């Protein structure tokens, strides 16, 4: 029965070929370090799922942000779990992204023909860091407020344009309601959209080019 439905769809949609190219593609004999990219992808999915769940209670305004976060962690069933997964997942994602990049560097996987995969990776790293930076302010507690206050001031220490960057980031000279909403908007719209776009290219190239083999000695 299930095979019948599957075949019915395959005939019209051709999903089997897609499935095969994604999941049944041939790869060289590699080691566990090559799973770091997939591990990062897993944390990305975790962040997306738990992040979407958080937005159904979280309110990005100075008079509600803190209370709504407290409400999630103390009143909503499993709220502590969802927030905890998002909180710790954020750190895990940064660490895994960096480890994945180190593997690519150390095994020389960035070389021809994978330069574009590397370029998209560079922007993915920026997106991941951006997520961390904008997400940090959202709980609107003391740590968040002063952390972002310092963070934006660091950006503000750039020569010549620094003050202007600081004002754009904060939406004015001070950390305010405007800062909170724009960080929220960037965190839940701009960065996810960029992540999906970049990851799409990244994964397309990984599949299209095939992953690199472990470098070998010449004689072997």
């Amino acid at each position, binding site marked *: 029965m299930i095979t019948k439905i599957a075949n019915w769809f395959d005939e019209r949609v051709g999903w089997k070929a897609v499935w095969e190219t994604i999941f049944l593609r041939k790869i060289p004999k590699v080691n566990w370090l090559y799973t770091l990219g997939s591990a990062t992808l897993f944390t990305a999915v975790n962040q997306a799922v738990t992040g979407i769940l958080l937005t159904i209670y979280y309110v990005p305004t100075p008079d509600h942000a803190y209370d709504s976060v*407290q409400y999630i962690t103390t*009143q909503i069933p499993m709220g502590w779990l969802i927030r905890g997964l998002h909180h710790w997942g954020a750190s895990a994602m940064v660490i895994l992204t960096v480890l994945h990049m180190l593997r690519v560097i150390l095994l020389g996987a960035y070389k021809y023909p994978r330069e574009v995969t590397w370029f998209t990776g560079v922007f993915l790293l920026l997106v991941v860091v951006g997520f961390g930076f904008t997400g940090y302010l959202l709980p609107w507690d003391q740590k968040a407020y002063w952390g972002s206050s310092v963070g934006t001031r660091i950006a503000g220490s750039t020569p010549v344009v620094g003050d202007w960057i600081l004002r754009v980031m904060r939406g004015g000279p001070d950390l305010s309601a405007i800062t909170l909403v724009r960080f929220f908007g960037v965190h839940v719209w701009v960065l996810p959209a960029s992540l999906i776009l970049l990851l799409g290219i990244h994964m397309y190239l990984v599949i299209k080019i095939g992953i690199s083999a472990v470098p070998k000695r010449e004689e072997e």
Partner: protein
Amino acid sequence: MSEKERLTRRDFMSIAMWAIGGVIGAAFGIPAVAYIIGPAARKQEDQGWIRLGAASKVELGSPTLFKSKIEKQTGWITNEEELSVYVLTENGRNFTAMSNICTHLGCRVRWIADQEQFFCPCHNAAFAKNGDVVSGPPPRPLDQYQVKEEDGQLFVLGG
């Protein structure tokens, strides 16, 4: 075991992968459902006895409107809400307290004294003095509160 039925390494890995995927899916899915339906599954907090006002204000034989403030907790916000109750007495000793919320779709009804009826503007319903439906779509009489009188003050049991 015949050659055909033997579980290949490939099949085993495939089954293991689906199983692990299923466990991870459930580990996210089940808490997610609890998280989403949480506020809906929550019991409404009891309001206890709410003071309406002096029993002497109720006119004999004519529903009298009392308004009192109650505090409602919604999520992390505490709101002041107005509770409107029509109190009716025929003898000054036994009181009936009726909600002013139409039993059709929740508009507010209002006592029209010269017609001796409650009237709901939303879909033209009319209720009799005791709350029974006279005409229109409401499925049941106006809801009643439990009332008590103490030291000349009226209280209703909110919930």
